[in-house]
């Protein structure tokens, strides 16, 4: 190993250190890390990476990593197994357990049964469509409103009383009126979900825009940004992580509102499926509906987090 590169490695961690000791001797030529030191630095950058790699054990192969990630699901697996065992052997103690708590295998066969009749996918897609439509509309309206309120205290002071008056009213309290307005169908349920998802999206966008670092705003202004440019290049990106949080919360609450809405009045959907199964005494269908809602919620949240990661490579919040 040549002395130059080992010195740099010893003096700094990764690429985040200043090139200051190396640049000191080359005074006068070029300000900041002169040509000589700069070249030196650029070369050792690759050397450092190679050296660092040689010092740590090689990363495990892909299948090993996949396995280790899967192994973290042991609690979920244990939970399902325990459920199966209790349902199977518990019926010897309490014969009603078959109906009260059908085992996972019964839920799977219920799924196969409904899928064969071609209704399962319809229920899933109808519910999914309603949630996505409603949360999409809530995002389109809620984000601009929230950003505007966060950015302009005067606008906020005007809108806030109206918003805070409507917000405490539970979305479910709107169901009778919304049936009256929209009839029984998609629009009525979308409206209920929209109401539920709207407020967390507005409030999070508001907080995101309000809490923008004042120094970033000043930096933008002193570099010649107009108000509009400032909004697009500083306020919006600064608020983006919080906007995503708002949409994720909105999605979660949206699912709750969906089931409630479909339980009361709907021609289809997972909530309808659960309610219908109740009248037929089919607890396996009820459990299937619950499991599917859980799985869809999880999948959508995962998609949102991936979207966050892709759209904001600079943001590493967990």
């Amino acid at each position, binding site marked *: 190993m040549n002395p130059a590169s080992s010195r740099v490695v010893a003096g700094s961690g990764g690429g985040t250190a200043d090139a200051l000791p190396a640049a*000191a001797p080359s005074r*006068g030529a070029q*300000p*900041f890390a002169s040509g000589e030191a700069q070249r030196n630095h650029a070369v050792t*950058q690759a050397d450092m990476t190679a050296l660092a790699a040689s010092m740590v054990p090689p990363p495990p192969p892909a299948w090993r990593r996949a396995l280790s990630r899967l192994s973290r699901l042991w609690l979920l697996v244990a939970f399902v197994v325990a459920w199966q065992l209790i349902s199977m052997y518990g019926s010897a103690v309490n014969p009603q357990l078959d109906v009260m708590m059908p085992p996972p295998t019964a839920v799977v066969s219920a799924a196969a049964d409904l899928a064969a009749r071609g209704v399962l996918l319809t229920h899933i897609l109808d519910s999914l469509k309603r949630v996505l439509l409603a949360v999409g509309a809530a995002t389109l309206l809620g984000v601009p409103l929230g950003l505007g309120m966060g950015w302009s205290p005067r606008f906020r002071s005007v809108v806030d009383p109206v918003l805070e008056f409507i917000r405490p009213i539970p979305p479910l309290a709107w169901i009778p009126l919304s049936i009256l307005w929209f009839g029984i169908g998609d629009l009525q349920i979308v409206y209920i979900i929209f109401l539920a998802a709207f407020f967390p999206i507005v409030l999070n966008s508001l907080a995101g825009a309000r809490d923008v670092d004042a120094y970033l705003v000043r930096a933008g*202004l*002193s570099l010649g*940004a107009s108000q509009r440019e400032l909004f697009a290049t500083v306020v919006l990106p600064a608020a983006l992580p919080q906007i995503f949080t708002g949409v994720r919360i909105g999605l979660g609450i949206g699912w709750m509102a969906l089931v409630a809405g479909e339980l009361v009045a709907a021609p289809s959907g997972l909530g309808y499926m659960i309610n219908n199964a109740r009248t037929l005494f089919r607890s396996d269908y009820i459990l299937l509906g619950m499991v599917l809602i859980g799985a869809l919620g999880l999948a959508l949240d995962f998609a949102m987090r991936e979207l966050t990661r892709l759209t*904001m490579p*600079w943001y590493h919040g967990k």
Partner: protein
Amino acid sequence: MSSNESQVSVENVSKVHFSMTGEPLLALLDVTFCVEDNEFFSIVGPSGCGKTTLLNLLAGFEQPTRGELRVGGELITEPGWKRAVVFQEYALFPWYTVAQNIRYGLRRKRLPEAEQRRIVDHYVGLVGLRGFEQRYPRELSGGMRQRVSIARALAVNPSVLLMDEPFAALDIQTREYMQDELLKIWQREPKTVIFITHSIDEAIKLSDRIAIMAPRPGRVEEIKRVDFERPRDPTDPGVVRLIADVKRWLRQQAFTAEHDERRERAAGETA
């Protein structure tokens, strides 16, 4: 650049702030001074002497209660690129890379694409960040972030570069190194610089002239010229004497201020 385009004049400026309880406070009283073209002008003073308020007025973030501030004869009414600011905490945009940060002001000026790229490249080289153009600020050390911030401010070619304690957050070695580099850049590409600091050593190392401020009410007490050849040797007897003079004077100020406060408080208690 014409000879007085970047001349700064501050005339009889006073600024009233309000405390949390709504009590008016005199942050600045009758501040008057001129900064010449391409002069390196420092403002030093203890905390609470109004030096940051003065910078905010020069940048256009705040408006004076009385008096006028001008750059090249033009009244300062709002922030803008002619008075680019380098902040203590860098204030880099975390969602932009190094190159995008430096380019920010050039985009706002709507310069042709090729020219933007040429200018960014020039300043990346000037501050020694070649190879780091595509990094995000969070991947850089404090010293490197401050270099990005300096490059970003210089790139718009401001009439005046305003620097608000730019090296106060850096460790001592990095700070001294950055001072040297700032001087080299300034000597290469002369520019009017107004440099706020609480460090007398720093001010004397860098400046042509130093305005010394005192608190309660915030005011400019004295303006000293530093006539030593650069680079200045901190062990030079003349420099040592100047530093000692200014420090003694500031200590006296702090003592008097505290003495006054004690006396006021005592008077309040007996009343």
